[in-house]
């Protein structure tokens, strides 16, 4: 089972369709929480998800500005989609819903 923060992070990574950056994840989480989310927790969560093989990353293009750094581009894996789907299903069941799978239908 994944934590709520991991679940939200996975949602944002999924939405980023293969090129989500830590900055985008932090922006989305800040918007959801209505306060500035800590970058530290975002990086830690992404690292943890990466260790669990729920997301994978590749190096992006360096920023155009002088001395610009290359961000990691995160992409959700099959295991990640499955974990996310299970988390959503668990939430629905806990909320008294049908427990049916998410609209994007990950599970067979």
């Amino acid at each position, binding site marked *: 089972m994944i934590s709520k923060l991991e679940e939200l992070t996975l949602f944002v990574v999924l939405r980023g369709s293969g090129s989500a*950056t*830590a*900055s985008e994840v*932090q*922006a989305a989480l800040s918007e959801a929480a209505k306060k*500035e989310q*800590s*970058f*530290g*927790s*975002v*990086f*830690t969560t992404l*690292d*943890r998800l990466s260790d669990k093989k729920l997301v994978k990353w590749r190096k992006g293009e360096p*920023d155009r*500005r*002088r*001395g*610009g*750094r*290359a*961000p*990691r581009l995160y992409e959700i894996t099959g295991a990640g989609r499955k974990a996310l789907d299970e988390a959503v299903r668990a939430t629905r069941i806990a909320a008294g819903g049908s427990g049916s799978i998410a609209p994007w239908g990950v599970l067979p």
Partner: protein
Amino acid sequence: MSDKIHVFISSGHHRDWKKIHESLVATYPEKLVVVPSVRDGELEKGWAKVFEAGKLRMAGKERTRFISMLLAVFRPWIELSKVFRRGRRGPPKGFLIDLLVPADRAEDMLSGLQTAYEERWVPKYGARRARRIFMTQSIGSILGFWIDWMMKHLRLLKFFAS
């Protein structure tokens, strides 16, 4: 832009004088000396004391002399501020992250923080507060990284111990 230094002496009579000050400072950040409103009692007294003038409302030769005095006094400060401002252009460099986090992780961290700084924090909070947020977030990221690293290794130690 020319190297001319703009001196703006506000009478403070205009009802939007604060806005005018701000827009002038924004237009000529390095080349403007604003003498604050004469209606501002404290500042007026301060300026009068510095230049040994009884009043700040001056005209003709007196004003010209006053302005040249101002320029003479402020010249080193203006030059210094130019140097500092030049260093401040763009997002912070994130020296602490480069120093304390492994290179491959630091690159992504800095990219994320610098993007957030430029695209969200500066427009939302202004440069000064954005810098403070950048600093706080940097320290949080460094601590988060090392705490996570420690926890991971402690878990491994526990695993082998059992």
